[in-house]
């Protein structure tokens, strides 16, 4: 009989572990963007429907499999069927890719956190140029927050071909990030179980503080109004626009995708966490709780984000107006304080009629300030977290405090997710008798962290951010869909739904609801297949893949095509994980055929 498996000290630790894994950076920086793109309040309709139809059943399935098989992803799927060991291996490979690039975000969060202890914040002012008569040109053309992100943090190169050297500052932060992750996973569930109390609860504290601060900011209501009633096209009223979005298939597909990836299905982390459960644990209840909390956190975070958007947009709009006022006051020598936002239009008309020649000289410099255009800048991903938020924070009072809080929250979210990602890799490794007999758990964890850290140095090079985007967009998307599809089909049809049902009943003592059976058997696989077909057709129809590169001379992003070697890497990424499934089945088939000569196969 095997050694006793380590267990969670309480079921609460398991729930917190799942929550801290599922609630990650995507809730903060992807969901608000989707909300804005697909009709604000009306996006919640497809989102909640997909949660109930797709998110909860698949989450319950993974937790149940892990709890029943009591092994990591490789062992669990091998137990379900020997031909499915490839599914487990594919999960581990995808988790490995994810670990490599995900911790780089934590490194960036550390970098910003350490820089938040200065007055003024380094991203709030442009640095001076050589002879101290003005600011650096790149910073003038872009904004100070963009300059700090692209030049000081990333030191980004103009294209992906010019990889440049490893930047020592982000490299140091990456080493620290991996050290922190190692510290948390060192002792397995014993240490992870205690850390997840913090990584699950503290982000909520910070979010609540930010909610209160965000709602009391000047202009926050503009952002919130925009979230729930986006203007959309000028012809439609907001309500009609929202109704139109409901009929848009892209909204439903994005809702399904967001639920799918936000819960972290298919990586093997949930199976790993559930394998450390007591067999009698009520994982159905936990699955429902975790998925509801994950979605509510997304909605909560987007309320905070939109109030911050509103504040930033209002601030920018007002400073734009002030610039116009200053320009007119100086050109026409009007009394200081005479021009305000209220009489600006009147006075402009007067000046245009009274002094046409002088007005036409000044006119090209007068910008049209509009609150709507400021609100419409929809950003997602690292741009939202590190550029838009920092721009809003630098305009708040006591900005150092808000900055520290915000990046601390990002760190907690990121490290919580990393715990799950590393568990997905380590659990199969420590389960394997071959490896665990040679090396203790600490050494295996250390080696995995070291390997990931070394490869992660790639992302600290000057072109590292472009490689990060490649990994972020392509490493996990298609493969996960395939993996989860294989999982669902395997449990329902290979292992047998009735057999699984009786296993669960023996394990937990509760009968399986018809709803889960219907979802697992029919709806969810169909949904995943349709998502997969959509993604494939999207990739094929787009033709060449492109990326956004930073142009220092212009101070903005430009679109470029990926070079052939980048495309090859993308293909490798997708192939490396998806090919494991058929190769695993093939390998088992071959070994069985070879063994068939000697002994009868064990059932």
């Amino acid at each position, binding site marked *: 009989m095997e050694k006793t498996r380590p267990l969670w000290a309480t079921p609460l630790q398991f729930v917190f572990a799942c929550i801290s894994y599922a609630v990650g950076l995507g809730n903060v920086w992807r969901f608000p963007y989707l909300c804005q793109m697909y009709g604000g309040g009306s996006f919640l309709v497809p989102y909640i429907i997909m949660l109930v139809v797709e998110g909860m059943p698949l989450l319950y399935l993974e937790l149940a499999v892990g709890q029943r098989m009591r092994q990591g992803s490789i062992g669990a799927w091998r137990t379900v069927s020997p031909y499915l060991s490839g599914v487990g291996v594919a999960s581990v490979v995808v988790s490995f890719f994810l670990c490599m690039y995900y911790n780089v975000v934590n490194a960036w969060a550390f970098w910003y956190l350490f820089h938040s202890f200065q007055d003024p914040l380094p991203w709030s002012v442009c640095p001076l140029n050589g002879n101290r008569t*003005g600011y650096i040109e790149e910073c003038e053309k872009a904004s100070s927050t963009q300059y700090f992100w692209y030049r000081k943090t990333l030191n980004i190169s103009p294209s992906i071909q010019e990889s440049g050297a490893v930047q020592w500052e982000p490299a140091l932060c990456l080493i620290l990030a991996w050290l922190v992750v190692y510290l948390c996973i060192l*002792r397995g569930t014993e240490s992870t179980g205690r850390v997840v109390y913090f990584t699950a609860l503290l982000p909520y504290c910070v979010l609540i503080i930010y909610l209160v601060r965000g709602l009391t900011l000047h202009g926050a209501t503009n952002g919130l109004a925009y979230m729930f009633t986006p203007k959309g096209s000028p012809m439609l009223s907001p309500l009609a626009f929202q109704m139109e979005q409901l009929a848009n298939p892209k909204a439903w597909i994005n809702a399904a995708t967001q639920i799918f990836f936000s819960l972290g299905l298919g990586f093997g982390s949930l199976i790993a966490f559930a394998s450390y459960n007591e067999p009698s644990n009520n994982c159905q209840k936990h699955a429902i709780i975790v998925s509801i909390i994950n979605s509510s956190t997304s909605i909560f975070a987007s309320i905070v984000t939109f109030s911050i958007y509103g504040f930033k947009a209002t601030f920018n709009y007002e400073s734009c107006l002030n610039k116009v006022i200053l320009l007119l006051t100086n050109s026409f020598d009007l*009394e200081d304080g005479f021009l305000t936002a209220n009489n600006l239009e009147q006075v402009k008309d007067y000046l245009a009629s009274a*002094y046409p020649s002088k007005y036409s000289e000044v006119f090209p410099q007068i910008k049209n300030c509009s609150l709507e255009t400021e609100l419409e800048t929809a950003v997602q991903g690292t741009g939202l977290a590190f550029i838009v938020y920092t721009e809003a924070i630098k305009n708040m009072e006591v900005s150092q405090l808000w900055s520290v809080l915000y990046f601390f929250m990002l760190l907690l979210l990121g490290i919580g997710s990393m715990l799950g990602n590393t568990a997905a890799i380590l659990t199969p490794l420590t389960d394997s008798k071959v490896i665990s007999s040679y090396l203790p758990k600490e050494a295996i964890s250390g080696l995995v962290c070291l390997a990931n850290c070394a490869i992660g140095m790639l992302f600290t090079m000057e072109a590292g951010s472009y490689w990060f985007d490649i990994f972020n967009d392509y490493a996990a998307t298609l493969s996960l869909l395939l993996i989860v599809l294989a999982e669902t089909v395997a449990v329902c049809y290979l292992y047998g739904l009735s057999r699984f049902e009786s296993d669960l009943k023996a394990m937990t003592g509760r009968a399986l609801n018809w709803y889960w059976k219907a979802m697992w058997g029919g709806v969810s696989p169909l949904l995943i297949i349709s998502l997969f077909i959509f993604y494939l057709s999207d990739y094929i129809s787009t033709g060449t893949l492109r990326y956004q590169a930073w142009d220092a001379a212009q101070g903005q992003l430009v679109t470029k095509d990926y070079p052939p070697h980048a495309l090859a890497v993308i293909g490798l990424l997708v192939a490396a994980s998806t090919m494991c499934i058929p190769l695993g089945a093939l390998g088992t088939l071959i070994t069985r055929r070879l063994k068939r000569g000697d002994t009868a196969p064990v059932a």
Partner: protein
Amino acid sequence: MILRCSLSTLTPRTRVSLYSVLATPWIPRTSSSGYTLGRSTPPALPFLAEPDLEKPQRSGRSLRISGGNRPVFLRNLHPAFYSTCNNLHCTWDSFECIGLHGQDAENAFKVRLSIRTALGDKAYAWDANEEYLFKAMVAFSMRKVPNRETTEISHVLLCNVTQRVSFWFVVTDPSRNHTLPAVEVQSAIRMNRNRINNAFFLNDQTLEFLRIPSTLAPPTDPSVPIWIIIFGVIFCIVLVATMLLIISGIRQHRRKNKGPSEMEDSEDKCENVITIENGIPCDPLDMKGGHINDAFVTEDERLTPL
């Protein structure tokens, strides 16, 4: 470049009337002497119109200053002003600079103040005394330049004060024949910019000298960047914690290894081997199969197990 200027050292009453004529033309205002502007269409702001230098003087109140080849003419500006000025006492000890040509024009600088923006409610009004202070500060700055220690307040000339508040100034040499070169004035102002700002409670943005770039404050770079200090602290803490955990883990591991070797003869070791008692394998509950029905009682159980 030709400037049209106004009187600068008049008594406050004439100043108000002057402003009422020149500064905000489309708002009919009563001047202090009761003279109202009855205009139906807003007149052009006076500084936009070209001065008419060739016209003969309308009154005898003019001074002629000749400097080099280019005489500088003074004259009255406006008939309305002329009429109010007649009733009031106008002092002419300083002069108005109308029609500066060429070199003199290049040596003049425009100054722009945004007092209300800077101070809000505590904004002070811009009057003759403030101008006097300004002239004093400029004279003070010039005195610090070698060879210019004899600059007096009366050598600094202000003109065309608008309601913005903005005006032009120029510094003449003691003989009042020509204006000091722009480079000297520029460097003098740059050196003493901070003191000039402080005298008016303003800063570089609210007290602007056009064409005199301000020296931006150098960034305060500490010798060691702050972020490295914080990074070092956190790095050391995490490293120490990791080491502690690893070492305690190794110790526990060693204790566990020593423990089983001491208990080798003990009979309750059934961790890794399947013990067999009385011919029946004592497997614990097998999670994978359920092949052994442990609820089934064998007849041998009547015997006392070891």
